[in-house]
């Protein structure tokens, strides 16, 4: 029983690292634009397909990984420049429409270029069938490590570099940032690029576990939303904590309470519960508006 519990928890942490990464991407976009990027999952799937194509073309794994992540960064930059900048002053519902349109577009594009057959994706860590230490597969261990390293690197970048500070400032207060000489539009583009790159890393890391098809990130995006909302949609640290929490809770509920078919329902329940009880999330700021 205890071995089972430990396995569920470690597996939950491994899943949670993916949700945490995608949740972070969602929060980064939300902080700078106050929009939820519903297409974040599809963008990650596209990154993963690009990586697979590079690997099949003969590149070594980490070379393909690096190139695919760089391409994701550029994809994010372009999305901001072409789709988002004209939407800056549009009503929120228009932005939602654009994001959902982008989701459908990318999803159809993936299916058209790479077909809908579910594909296996290679892991650089030794496969997901062998069990290491009894609790976790080598891939789950490896992807958790990669994701954690990435999250720490992002944290250090935002906390301790001037560019990171300027990006945070541009998200919090674009007007004052311009008065300090910060080129806010450029910062927005960089934020989108970074979010797309993070999503891409998450997609490439999770593909060996869930296999690659155009709908791969659908469920994961839902978990990531739940995590981001739970932690506080305007708080990056909250997003990461929320992501890991959802991962563990989902596994424990699935194993001991509702069964694996209803695991996704747990995510939906978390979303509704957070919005009903504490919409700001655990670490988010409650914004009061004087009427």
């Amino acid at each position, binding site marked *: 029983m205890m071995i089972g519990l430990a396995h569920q928890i470690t597996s939950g942490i491994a899943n949670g690292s993916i949700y945490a990464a995608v949740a972070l991407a969602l929060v980064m976009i939300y902080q700078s634009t106050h929009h939820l990027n519903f297409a974040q999952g599809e963008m990650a799937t596209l990154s993963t397909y690009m990586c697979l194509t590079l690997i099949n073309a003969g590149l070594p794994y980490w070379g393909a990984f690096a190139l695919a992540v760089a391409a994701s960064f550029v994809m994010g930059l372009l999305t901001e420049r072409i789709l988002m900048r004209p939407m800056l002053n549009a009503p929120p519902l228009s932005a939602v429409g654009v994001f959902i349109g982008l989701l459908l577009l990318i999803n159809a594009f993936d299916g058209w270029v790479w077909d809908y057959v579910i594909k296996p994706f290679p892991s650089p860590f030794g496969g997901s069938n062998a069990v290491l230490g009894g609790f976790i597969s080598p891939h789950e261990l490896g992807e958790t490590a990669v994701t954690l390293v990435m999250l720490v690197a992002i944290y250090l970048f935002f906390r301790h570099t001037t560019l990171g*500070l300027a990006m945070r400032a541009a998200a919090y207060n674009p*007007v004052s*940032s311009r008065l300090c000489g910060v080129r806010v539009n450029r910062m927005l583009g960089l934020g989108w690029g970074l979010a797309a790159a993070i999503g891409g890393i998450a997609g490439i890391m999770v593909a060996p576990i869930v296999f690659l098809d155009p709908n791969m990130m659908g469920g994961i995006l839902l978990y990531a939303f739940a995590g981001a909302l739970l932690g506080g949609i305007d708080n990056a640290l909250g997003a990461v904590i929320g992501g890991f929490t959802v991962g563990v809770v989902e596994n424990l509920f699935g194993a001991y309470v509702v069964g694996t078919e209803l695991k996704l329902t747990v995510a939906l329940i978390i979303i509704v519960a957070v919005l009903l009880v504490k919409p700001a999330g655990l670490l988010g700021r409650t914004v009061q508006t004087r009427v």
Partner: protein
Amino acid sequence: MPALLEARGLHAGYGQTKVLHGIDFAVEQGGVTALLGANGAGKTTTLRAVCGLIRAQGEIRLGTDRIDRLAAEEIVRRGVGHVPDGRGTFLELTVEENLRLGAYTRKDRAAVAADVERIFGYFPVLRQRLRQQAGTLSGGEQQMLAIARALLVKPRLLLLDEPSFGLAPLIVQGIFAILRRINVEEGVSILVVEQNASLALDIADHAYLLETGHIVMAGGAAEIRRDESVRRSYLGY
């Protein structure tokens, strides 16, 4: 003496609402100019037009360059520091991060460090609160932080929008005294917008009176202060 800032025929507004109806004004090199007027006269709009936050028609010159078509980020790099109304503090960031952002455009680390020391000389409380979140500072401290942030841009021209707003009289006097010092010791030209005419006229060399988007009076601060109608409407005696 040549003017550092000169505006001619400035028209500006927000959407359909026209606020400024073709105004002319100037800030002398090394001087302090006050822009006075009641609520809604268009003072904040004027500052926003000068620093590029809103589009305006007309000519604005900084030194020999025209700046009226430039984006705010670029005008800052020409040496304009703006302390906006409401302070514009980055509330979620620390005092130190706010200051670092003020120096964002500068490459000379040693000079920035020296400037920060000098600013701590003007506002010692900022050194004490360096690691604190800026949103937890009092109104007066946030005003000092906003001025410090603008000074770190190393501006030739400092724009201040209602620096006395919402502050206790004693704090305000202290801040205005420091503004005078900054003008004298560092040679920074100042354009200060104020509803509190008496305060502004105390430190100004020249003044303009703005009423519903028109300049109705211009002249030396002393003569504006003595003017009968100004005394009655804006100085209260």
